[in-house]
């Protein structure tokens, strides 16, 4: 018997991101890892800021000038949001670690709360920071 012809359609070798329908829980899971990776790189900014502070007024003036610029403020704003999002994502994991929050409605609620909560918290932090000025 002749061997069956292989299908000519390009099929994925294994299921991966691009063939899944995006859901809230999946998106927030991916986003938790993305924000974690972004924060990983972001610690370099913290190191640069602290080393500049320890180096003297000239170096600190340069770094403070960057973070005080419009682009610098944008970086800090996004940094705040990413940090708080990763924090709430972590708290979501703690809830799951405790063995609760696995119902369909609870999963969806937690995923949405992560995104909405991080956005609201970021705005609160920046509003408080600007008002305290």
């Amino acid at each position, binding site marked *: 018997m002749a061997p069956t012809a292989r299908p000519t359609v390009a099929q994925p070798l294994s299921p991966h991101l691009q063939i899944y329908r995006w859901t809230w829980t999946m998106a927030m899971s991916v986003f938790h890892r993305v924000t974690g990776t972004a924060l990983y790189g972001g610690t370099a900014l913290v*190191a640069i800021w602290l*080393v500049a502070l*320890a180096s003297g007024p000239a170096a*600190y003036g340069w770094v403070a000038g960057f973070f005080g610029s419009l682009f610098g403020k944008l970086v800090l704003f996004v940094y705040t949001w990413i940090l708080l999002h990763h*924090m709430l994502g972590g708290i979501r994991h*703690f809830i799951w670690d405790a063995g609760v929050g696995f119902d369909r409605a609870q999963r969806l609620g937690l995923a949405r709360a992560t995104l909405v909560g991080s956005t609201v918290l970021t705005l609160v932090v920046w509003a408080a920071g600007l008002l305290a*000025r």
Partner: protein
Amino acid sequence: MAKEQIRQNPAVSIRTPRARVRGLGVSHHGAGHWWVQRLTAVANVVLMLAFVVIIARMAGRPYPEAIRLVGSPLVSLILILAVLSVTIHMRLGMQVVIEDYVHAPATKIAAVFANNFYAVVVAVACLYAILRVSFGQSPV
């Protein structure tokens, strides 16, 4: 007999009694990675909220005031603890990401090495800077 019973039964399993008692599994460090990730995560919640407040208070300050703020004992202590907790946490997190996506042995080892170097360089640079400011060694 259920799978778990076979694994736990010394008469059937090829695992040594010592390995069974230590409970560290095939990776030889058990749930240590997972546990430290959670431990530092809890610490990070408190420390990073304090860090955000410190950064907000630093914004727009002239150099001598910035030095005085970071150099104060409480702020220095919070920053040191935050740097330790965050660099340990991020090193563990990136290791999982590498193990999930990088499969070629040479690339994987290189990536894990780079991850360790990066985490240590960031940690030591931050700690050195904080201590230098805190001990009044920075040029004012």
